[in-house]
Structure formats: structure tokens, C-alpha cells
């Protein structure tokens, strides 16, 4: 956790650069695809990567990760109590990270989830 906190701190310090890198492809970034599937009772959701909103297509969005840097992919969901979805991050079709089930807590209409992405 301490390491994670340090990573967050480092990301926040370099936020302007990271945000730019997360949204646009540069020579020093790696393109990744975030895909949502297996939606059950999810009305809508939004993603953010390294502090920048992820532009979204039908069921996927592109993010650009900095090699060797642990960056935070987080998302919020609205929908039915106990609604859930699957989140997969791929690089050239190969899975990099996955949340098999990201769910809205019982008795709530919204949920939050996040995971760190590290690519080399």
C-alpha cells in the first residue's frame, strides 16, 4: 500500500504530463484498450485513467500508459443495486489487467472501482 501511495503521489506531482499522456498517444506511451462486458443492470459508467477522463466508444475506450509507471484506472457506475460488469484492459489483444466482476453494492444505485495498470 505504501508503494501504491507513493505511486499516486508521483502521479499527482506529474499530473499535467500524465493526463496528457493518458489521453493522447505519444512516442513514449503504450496504447491500451479498456473494454466493458457482461453488463447486468448497469445503466451507465465513466472511466478515468491517470486522472484524465477516458473517451468512450460503444463498449471500449483507448488509454495510453507510460511504460514502467503504475497508473490508476478508476471508474464509477450507476445502475441497479447489485448490478455488475466486467472490465478488461488489453494491449494488442493481450490481456493486461482484468476485473472479472465490478459491482454496485446492495441497496445503492452507484458503485466505485479502480485498479492499477503497469506495462513495460
Amino acid at each position, binding site marked *: 500500500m505504501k508503494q501504491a501511495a507513493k505511486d499516486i503521489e508521483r502521479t499527482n506531482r506529474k499530473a499535467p504530463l500524465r493526463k496528457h499522456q493518458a489521453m493522447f498517444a505519444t512516442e513514449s506511451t503504450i496504447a491500451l484498450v479498456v473494454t466493458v462486458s457482461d453488463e*447486468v443492470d448497469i445503466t451507465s459508467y465513466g472511466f478515468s485513467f491517470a486522472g484524465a477522463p477516458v473517451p468512450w466508444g460503444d463498449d471500449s475506450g483507448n488509454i495510453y500508459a507510460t511504460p514502467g509507471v503504475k497508473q490508476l484506472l478508476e471508474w*464509477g457506475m450507476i445502475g441497479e443495486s447489485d448490478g455488475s460488469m466486467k472490465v478488461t484492459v488489453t494491449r494488442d489483444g493481450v490481456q493486461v489487467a482484468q476485473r472479472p466482476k465490478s459491482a454496485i*453494492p*446492495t*441497496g*445503492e444505485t*452507484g458503485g466505485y472501482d479502480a485498479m492499477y495498470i503497469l506495462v513495460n
Partner: protein
Amino acid sequence: MLCRSIVVLLAGASIPAFPAHAQTAPVSADSVAAAHAALKDVDEGLRKLAEAQAALDRVREDLRAAQASAEAVLAAQGQPAPAAPVVASPPSQTAGDHTPRSTGAAKGMTGLPVIPDAQGETLSAKAKEFGSGLAGSVANGPNGSPLKSTGAVDFQLIASSKDKVASVAFTVNLKNRYDGIHLRSDQLTATATGNLDDNGSSQVVGLGGFSSGTGIKISYVHYQTKLVLNGTAINSESVKAAEAECLRELGPSSDKCVADQYGDGGISIFVQKYDPQGVRSLINLVLPKPIWFYGLSFDGNQASYKFINRAEFATKKVDHFGFGGTLFGGIIANEGLTSVIGSFDYRRNYNEGDQINLCQPLEGTPQTQCLTGPDGAPTRETTKIAALEFRHAFKFADGVPRLAIAPKFSADFDSKAWSIEMPIYFVGDGTGKLRGGIQGLYKNTVDKNGQRAGTFSAGLFVGVPFSVFKQ
């Protein structure tokens, strides 16, 4: 006059226009199995309804016998007996062949005894009142409701002893947009409804055009709320407290206590598991504002109407196209399960005449032949109805909702009628969803003489789970 009647609706058997009984499932292997089970329930319910129908028939026979006895007594006392009405069997009702509600006003025709429908309060008629525009909605509305969202194909079957109505709904997410401040979503839902024939097949649009008894609805909904994703939630006190509690429970060396690695539901589920009190503050960090929504829907339906032509002493049939539109909007609270929705509905439909039995003597015999059905051709009717609905689920100590209410007030501007519905959910399905309960309905209308009359009904319902997103 305040009439009280209790309508007990059988679990698993559905009544037309009372979609609380609908069985809903996305199409998958599980849902197909569930659909089979639901169909079994429906069959069982149909069987029970048939038994109830037979019981009603027996009561009717007893009434006939009592009527004959009374007439015999009157005859013995030398008093003239009233014209002997012949009570017909309760009318059938299908989505395409609508049976009107009896107003109780007899319409006579010279030489022919005419009585109003003696079974004005049959289950089907009562169910139609529950599902009519004014009394509106249902304990929980599936494909017929304005606010509708389904990620997968949503198949529903509503059945009664006479009808089998199937509907299929599909929602397309036009766009999920998150700009760093607001989460916006637009959805388009298409719903097709059709009568199933005896073979279980249905046709929405045939070679001859829009098939009778079918309807198509298109609805658009826009959702908007504030979404904060800036890295603070994952480092919040709630997450830290949940991780600490996890380590306390599983041991300090456990590697299963990292919230962002919790595969069985993610961070908010992790917090709910290990620090239930903290889940609210966590969600408030991410979704600090309520969810607003608004939308509109349009629908059209083709229906066949049977009616009695008095002059020809014959039953006729005519097809009409009806249409309607609904504007709606509301708010879903960001805490717990609470929503408020307001709607305005404009509709042009066709209204059948009062149900009558029309009898005439058979020439050369002492017997009579009778026709049962609506009196005259259907008349065009326009309705404008405003409604306000509140939904709330009460959570208990474990955070699971075990009681929910969904009161709804509706007002019909043209007929100056209004109604209040109060579904109360308290029956769970074992998966945390509330699927059943009781519903009370009070309806206040103005009769033909300008007098106000109130009716109260209550019924049991089982079906689609309580929801704040699917009204």
C-alpha cells in the same frame, strides 16, 4: 359510493395490462431455464384461474336459481315478475379484443331485454383498471413503463386465462460520456408487443401491415450525474478502514486485503464487506450528486374491437390504430434506493361501449338467443394524464432492502378523475430483490350524472423486482 373489493391475483399467472406479474429475464442459458420455469408457473396460474372461473360459473348458476325462485314467489303473490334477463358468461378479454368496463347503466332497446354486464368486476376487468392509463402503473413496470433500461434483450410474457401477450424490449446505449465532471448517458429502447396465438407464435408486422393486437414503442432517456474520479476515493478513509478490518479478520499477512485487487465485486463491494458503514461515504466521494433523468416515448398499437350491432342483431369487428406519447423526468437520489418521477401522457385510443347482453326470441320456439359484447362501435377517445410517483426502499440493519413502497398519484384532466396507487413490496426472492407484496388502488371518477364515485381495490402481486431505474 366507496366500493371495496379484494382482488387476489395468483402468483405466476399474469393478467393483461398488469405487468407486475411479468417474468423478466435477459436471454441466456439461465434465463431460458428461468423462462421455462416461469412458463410452468404461468400454466399453473392459468389452471387456477380456470378453476376460479368455474367457481364463478357455479355462483352464477346459483344466482340464476335464486332469481327463478324469487320470480316464482312473486308470481305466487300475484305480483308481476320483472323482465327476465339472461345472464351471460363473463366476457373474454384479449389485448386485441378489448372488453370495456361496465358502468352499470343499462341501455334498453324496444322489444329486446338488455342488461348491463353482470360481471362488471371480473378479474380481467379489474386488472384492466389497474393497468389503464389513469390507474396506471403496475407494482413495477416492465416493458410497458416509460423509464426502461435493459442491457440485454428483455423478454416478458403476460398471461391470463384468455390472453398470452409477449413483449420484447432492447436498449441501445447511444453514448456514455464522461468529461471529467459529469457522467451523461443516452439510451434508446425499442419495445414490441404482440399477442401469442395457440401455437405460441406472434407477428408484429405481417404481409398485411401492422398486425392486430400488436404495439411498438420507442423511448429515449437521458441520465446525468456528477462523477468524481481523481484518485481520492481509492485513498479514502473508508477504503483504509476496510483494508484494516480485513487484515484484522484474515491476519496481518493476508494478501487478500488490497481493495483494488478484490476480484469479487471491486472496491465498493470490498468496503461494503469489511466496513459496511463506510460504503456510503465512499460512494458520496465518487457520486456526490443525485442522478437526473428525462425522456420521452412514442407508441402505436393496432387493436381489433368486437361489438354488437343492434340493428342487425350481429357481432361485428373493426380494427383501429391508437397512439400515444409520454414525457417524463425525475431524480434518483444518490443515497439508498429512492426516486421521484413525474410524467405527462397523451393518448388517443378507442373506447368500447358498455358490455351488454342482447336477446331476442327464436322464432317458433319458446327459447331466446343472446349476444354478449360491447354496445355499438368503439368511439375515439383522447386522454391527458399527469402522474407523480415516489419510490423508496427501506434498508434494515444489514443494509439489505426488505420493504419498499411506490405510491403514485395520477390525474386525468379530461374526465376529472384521479387515482392513488400504493404498492408495498415485502416479499423477497432470496437474492436480495423484492419481488412481491400487496397493492392498493383508490380511484375517484365522475359518473354520467356528474356525481363523484370512489372505488378501492387491493391485490397481491408477484413479478418484476423493485427498482428505481425501471419504473
